[in-house]
């Protein structure tokens, strides 16, 4: 069942007198519960693609159908609702708020809804799931990189999103911590039936997904199940 559908998606940026075509007529369908890696060289349009799906940026042209709604038509408030209710973001640099504890960071997306009771309970449950229960009151600076990223994952999951968008989530982590994070995301993908879109430079990490999409110069140049892709196919 199609969860996300991109139709003729284009994104142009104007830099001085130059128009940069970040995405060129991208057409894609992603099924509900799929774990997709998006790879490609720098400037290929990976991050722009992720921002479009997360309603952070609007395309210059085309449609983006998520749960049968074209999110391109959303206004600022609808986009916020969409991000809060349906999307969980995981960033390369974790982006935790340094003054807040791990538990408070996890609860941040629930602030516009007044932090309901069930969110508090879920935050504790997520900390346990992340094996971070004993770190609930710790501030980010008191945690390792891997622990910070686990808090960030818990924050992404607090509102029970349908889609996880991860932008280089292992970029700041050592190999071991990186693998743990990807394993954790795969586990969540299976247990919570969450659709995961993972943008990465790391081709070994990309191979851990169900499906790999290779972008180059704003176009999809490869789109295959990961078990049918060789790492050398991904090198441009």
């Amino acid at each position, binding site marked *: 069942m199609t969860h996300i559908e991109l139709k003729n998606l284009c994104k142009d940026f104007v830099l001085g007198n130059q128009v940069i075509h970040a995405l060129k007529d991208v057409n894609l369908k992603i099924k509900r519960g799929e774990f997709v890696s998006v790879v490609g060289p720098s400037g290929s349009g990976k991050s722009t693609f992720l921002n479009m799906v997360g309603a*952070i940026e609007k395309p210059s042209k085309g449609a983006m159908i998520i749960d049968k709604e074209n999110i391109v038509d959303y206004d600022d408030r609808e986009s*916020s609702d969409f*991000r809060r209710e349906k*999307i969980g973001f995981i960033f390369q640099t974790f*982006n935790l708020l340094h003054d807040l504890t791990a538990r408070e960071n996890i609860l941040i997306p629930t602030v516009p809804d007044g932090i309901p009771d069930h969110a508090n309970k879920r935050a504790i449950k997520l900390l346990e799931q992340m094996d971070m229960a004993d770190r609930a009151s710790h501030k980010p600076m008191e945690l390792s990189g891997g622990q910070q990223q686990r808090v960030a994952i818990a*924050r992404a999951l607090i509102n029970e999103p349908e889609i996880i968008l991860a932008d280089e989530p292992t970029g700041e982590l050592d190999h071991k911590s990186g693998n743990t994070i990807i394993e954790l995301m795969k586990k969540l993908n299976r247990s919570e039936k969450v659709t995961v879109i993972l943008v990465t430079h790391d081709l070994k990490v990309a191979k851990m997904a169900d499906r790999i999409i290779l972008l180059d110069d704003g176009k999809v140049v490869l789109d295959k199940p990961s078990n049918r892709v060789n790492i050398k196919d991904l090198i441009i």
Partner: protein
Amino acid sequence: MLYALAIKNLLRRKSRTLISILGIAIGIAMIVSLVSISEGIQSTVQDSISKIQGISVMQKGAIDQILSSVDESYADKISQLRGVRAVSPEVFAMASTVEGREIVFRMGAGPPGVVIGIYPKTYEDLKSAGYTTNIIEGRFFKSDSEKSKVVIGKNIASKYNKRVNQRLRIDGESFKIIGVFESGSNMIDNFIVMHIDDARDLFNLPENSVNSFMVDPSNPAQSDELAKYINRKFSKLHASTSQEFAKQFGETFSVISLFTLAVSSVAAIVGGLGIANTMLMSVIERTKEIGVLKSVGWYSSDVLKLILFESIMISVIGLIVGVGIGSFVALYIFPTFMNMPALINLELLLLATGFSIGLGLLGGIYPAYKAANMSPLEAFRGGD
């Protein structure tokens, strides 16, 4: 958590927050202290003036007796008017030293300094003359021949620990104290009354000139009409009943109060600019953080509330500190040195509150607007 986050944000840059709070606090302290002191002075002086009975006649345009100068010959002209019972010429001067102690000018109150010179006989004719109606010790002058003598207000007596028959040195000259009066006004009880010739000698005042006349109407109920009549008859003079004079003084002083408020408001506005600067810096530094909040689904209005709450917190703390400092200056320091109360009323506190919160809102509105309109894309930009 929004409010907890706002407080934590303020605590993150403690010194910067503290400076912003101080900026507002100084402005508010100035408003509270200067306005309350100004109100206190106005109220005390008006209260004192209103205790003086009769009609005061001064040079037209002069705001008080000290600054007025009129020809003494007007005394006869005024006394011939219908409805006038008695006219007493008066000279006013500020003593430099009393009992060898230097006198600092203190807005009409505080330690003694004002000397009034009168013709004792004429003055005695005034039925309702204001300053000395209540002699609590000794007596008033009996005749015009009594020179080198003074009648002093009770504040002078207590300040210099003097009693009747003792001597009081004014600007190096010695005078015998023959009486002590109590007027009910803190200001008037600091006056020293002496023979007009003694006052002229002591302060080198011109012979034919006086500061003012005290006029006693035949019928006190017709004081207002008589004052108007004097004004119509003598274009260079201005006559007013004490109530009217108090009102005029109040109007004149209101301008000074307004000016005081304007000056202190400028200080508070500078404090408000401090808030704007602090909040703007804070928003710029937290660009990525704000991007994260928006990317996880915060509405622009949540971000707006967060930043505005921070700036209002600064202004509220500044208000509390400012009111504290201002009240301390007005209620403890000023009365200690000036022997006059300051007036802090609810209106002033509401003004300070409105001003402070208004500045907090104004100072925060642009940074908050800027933050609210930041793109969530900022969260994806590299680095912290």
